[in-house]
């Protein structure tokens, strides 16, 4: 029943906020998201006591004619993703406190609706239900980008929408194909394990077709080069909170999907095409890292840097070994926290300096060393210095990739060099040097901003110094996924 509660809290909040007019209920939105976070921590607590506890799952018949069930549960992988989502949503809400969006009740309503859909995506054990949540998640982010985005957002958002919607259709076809192969005895099922069995029963060609149709959907969402061009534009025009939702959590739907809905289902397809997909990832890492080095706009810069990091996540997952998969899960968590941190930094920059163009900024550390410190810590996480959250994931992912192919790991490893190049360069341009006219107004931060930054920095450090509580769940999760392959 806890799973229903996890869906119900944000849904209830979303309904209240979407119905309410005006912009006076931000505290309500924050409170609901905090309650949701507490409940997910409680779920974590229960999971630690008894992983297969019946409280952590719920299954009821849903659409009988197609055999779809409302089947949601919490296992190792979904627990981590839910913790990430529900940890980040309150931060994202808090990060908008000073912004004062017009019609902010609707704005928060969409965020919470999105939270419901994301939690649903991560918990669904039924292919149809998964697809429904997946599509539902697209709607609020579409409106958030469209209604609260900056200039040119309509065109960009449409591009984003068509792009990902097209991907979703590919995914639907893949899932339908699997579904059609379920039930030898005539009763079709959307159950995840049935879909795995269906996939494994198919021949190489069929598995390959399913692999590509589903992989393309995920590759667009993550995104993986060359399916990434929607992302930089969207990141630039979307409101910051929309970008945080997108890069912090929503992209993880795809890497999560890769681990739960694709890898265990088509082992033969992976055997044939996994290598090609990995090549795409490795090329993407280098290609986007190099582009990131030359970017002038901070948002566009993070977009490219993010594509590079996400490609490491995918590469780890596709290595198909314990370290690779575990690393990709840990990197998802780190990337989520760091992406929200990086975008919050730009929110503050734009508020005080009025621009996100890197060359126009400079010397901010002279004026606000506290802000400089937080930015620095987040940067360390992105650069994956040991004792920050980025390290363990990156280390394990690359280690896994190395076991798959040392040469690929060597190329993918270039990201640790390029990552240092573009992050340090950006940090230096924005924070160090002499104060410029644009940055003169950089005063002290407000309490809500300080709190948000402090929580993110603490998370970056805590997950790096003592990763064990999360890492042991990731270890189990990777183990469970590998069990399906072997």
């Amino acid at each position: 029943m806890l799973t229903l509660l996890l869906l119900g809290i944000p849904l209830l909040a979303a309904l209240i906020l979407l119905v309410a007019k005006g912009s006076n209920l931000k505290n309500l939105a924050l409170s609901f998201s905090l309650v949701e976070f507490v409940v997910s921590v409680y779920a974590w607590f229960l999971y630690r006591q008894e992983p297969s506890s019946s409280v952590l799952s719920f299954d009821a018949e849903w659409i009988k004619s197609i055999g779809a069930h409302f089947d949601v549960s919490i296992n190792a992988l979904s627990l981590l993703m839910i913790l990430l989502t529900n940890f980040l949503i309150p931060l994202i809400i808090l990060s908008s406190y000073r912004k004062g969006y017009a019609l902010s009740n609707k704005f928060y309503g969409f965020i919470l609706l999105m939270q419901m859909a994301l939690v649903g995506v991560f918990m669904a054990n039924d292919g149809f239900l998964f697809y429904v949540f997946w599509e539902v998640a697209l709607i609020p982010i579409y409106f958030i980008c469209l209604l609260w985005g900056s200039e040119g957002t309509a065109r960009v958002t449409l591009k984003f929408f068509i792009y990902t919607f097209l991907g979703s259709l590919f995914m639907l076809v893949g899932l339908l194909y699997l579904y059609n192969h379920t039930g030898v005895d005539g009763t079709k099922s959307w159950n995840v394990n049935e879909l795995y069995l269906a996939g494994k029963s198919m021949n190489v060609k069929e598995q390959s077709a399913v692999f590509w149709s589903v992989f393309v959907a995920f590759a667009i969402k993550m995104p993986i080069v060359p399916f990434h061009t929607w992302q930089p534009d969207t990141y630039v025009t979307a409101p910051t909170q929309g970008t945080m939702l997108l890069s912090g959590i929503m992209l993880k739907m795809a890497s999560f999907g890769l681990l739960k809905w694709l890898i265990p289902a088509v082992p033969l397809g992976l055997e044939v095409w996994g290598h090609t997909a990995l090549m795409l990832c490795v090329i993407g890492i280098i290609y986007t890292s190099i582009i990131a080095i030359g970017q002038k706009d901070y948002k566009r810069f993070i977009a490219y840097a993010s594509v590079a990091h996400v490609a490491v996540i995918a590469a780890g997952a596709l290595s198909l070994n314990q370290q690779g998969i575990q690393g990709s899960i840990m990197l998802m968590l780190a990337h989520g926290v760091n992406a929200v941190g990086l975008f919050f930094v730009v929110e503050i920059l734009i508020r005080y300096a009025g621009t996100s163009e890197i060359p126009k900024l400079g010397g901010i550390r002279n004026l606000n060393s506290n802000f400089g410190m937080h930015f620095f810590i987040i940067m360390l996480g992105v650069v994956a210095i040991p004792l920050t959250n980025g390290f363990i994931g990156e280390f394990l992912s690359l280690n896994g990739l190395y076991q798959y192919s040392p040469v690929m790991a060597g190329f993918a490893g270039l990201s640790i060099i390029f990552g240092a190049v573009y992050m340090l360069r950006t940090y230096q341009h924005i924070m160090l040097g002499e104060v410029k006219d644009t940055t003169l107004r950089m005063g002290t931060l407000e309490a809500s901003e300080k709190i948000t930054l402090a929580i993110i920095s603490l998370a970056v450090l805590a997950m790096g110094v003592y990763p064990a509580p999360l890492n042991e769940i990731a270890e189990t999760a990777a183990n469970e996924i590998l069990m399906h392959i072997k």
Partner: protein
Amino acid sequence: MMKLAALVPLFPLVGFILNGLFGKKMSKGLSGTIASVAMLLSFGISLAVFLELQTAENKATVINLFSWISSDTLQVPFEFLIDPLSSVFLLIITGIGFLIHIYSLGYMKHDDAFARFFAYLNLFVFFMLLLVMGNNYLILFMGWEGVGLCSYLLIGFWFKNNAYNDAAKKAFIINRIGDLGFLLGIFLIFTTYGSTTFGDIFPNAGMASPAVVTTIALLLFFGATGKSAQIPLFTWLPDAMAGPTPVSALIHAATMVTAGVYMIVRSNIFYSMSETASAVVAIVGLATALIAALIGLFQNDIKKILAYSTVSQLGLMFLGLGAGAFSSSVFHVTTHAFFKALLFLAAGSVIHAMGGEQDIRKMGGLKGKIKITFITMLIGTIAISGIPPLSGFFSKDEIMAHVFEYNGLLWFFAMIVSALTAFYMFRLIFLTFYGKFRGTSEQEHHLHESPPTMTIPLVVLAALAIFGGLLGLPEFWGMSNWMAENLDTIIMHHHETRLSHQTEWILMGLAVVSALIIILIAYNVYRKKGLVPVEKEQQLKDWQRPIFHKFYVDEIYDFLVRRPVDFLSESFYKVLDLQVVSLLVDGIGNSVKTFGSYIRLIQNGNVSTYIVGMVMSIICILLFIFLI
């Protein structure tokens, strides 16, 4: 008692946290005291641990703190190893670290960011201690990255100056290039031996094929070339002199840059097993030593001379490692830490006296004005030049004997390096302290000896530079070489020198005589003739020009790496991403539009027709993929 060693890194960590969080609210005196006391406590425990280890039966104690990373067969505990090797490094790091903290109390007295400086310094010591105490390659790597980070922070300590920031960034990025090699080395070690813990790997090192061992050794060494500033990754160290001078002494001379040596000594088994890897280490070390010494001849910035000297001395240590002289190299790390820290701190005292001037052409005649600085710096110079009985003589001689046995040609070039070292160091001494003062009259008026907080560390280090040789007296003198005996247990393959006593005496004599001759030449040129280096490039002879320009290495890297990457960044973005990929996407979009105008004919408003059409098209696409 041994378990207390876990406290050694804890004190500087606490010092960092206190100064980092509350430094701004504290008085300078308090934050300086916190940082220095933290170091003193660490030093005290290190000393106790060290002394206990001398008599202990068990030469290796493992202290387990908690499980850091667990991934199936990959188990990485947060674990420390206290053994003869780490205990020597503990003493160097905390001992010299403490002296440099004291020195910094005076040197940084007028800096506004006093607390931040000490916070970084403490943090550096913390990571350096992790580096040498780690019981597996990952904790070593953690310290390795951490000291790199602190180096970045301290080189760019005065962050308003973008030239300093660039130097800091350069140091970090070049180190990261090495780190990739190190990381790949760790991956290979894990895939080969199934562990990253030293105790699991070294006894089983022989289980891997020779090719794998060589690859591991080379990858680790590539990592070392970054941190220890060897060819091809040495160019960051001279630029790193942008940091405050105590930083140069602690990080860029005595401790961090020797991390590469530590790592190779720790992994000595791989090098003993691979002649190829050893040869590469020896040759790269020698080439670095030679090139850096040559460049050192033409430097006029007092800190840059010392920086190139450090690169050169590190090269000698790697030459020693390649020749199998592991304990001799650790010995040289130790004595080098004494005299090079001394030289840097003395240089800092000179700069302090000169009001920030670093160009030795604008100094001269300082010996009467800053007596303690002069005498201590002279001691450091004699030590590094290899004149007996100062410490540098013994450690260098030990390495040279091994190199001679390893390869006569390498030994010959190493002798040239030694000669060059003596020359540029005495050039520095004569130009700085002798002759007439060449600065402004205002500077002359202000000349003063540094406060006791700065001179006391100088005196202590000078004493260490004089007597440090006692740690490793030559065996052929009939003495016992403590360093060699101490490190006995961690060196896997022993390599006893088989040179006759007579040969060793001759080698030693040659080294001393050549050093003395070179010093005389330097005396003749810079003291007697009073030559001051030229200001302008045009006055240089043709053969001098490449050396003056540091063999154009920075320019070559700029041309070969930085510009192509910038070019690629620009063209990937503007051509590939904005044009090609987007065109494809838009092209698909447009063709859909055109196609749509025909399709419109069959649009009848019936939703089910649409869905059928949509699913049909997707199936077509799938069939397409499916059939090819």
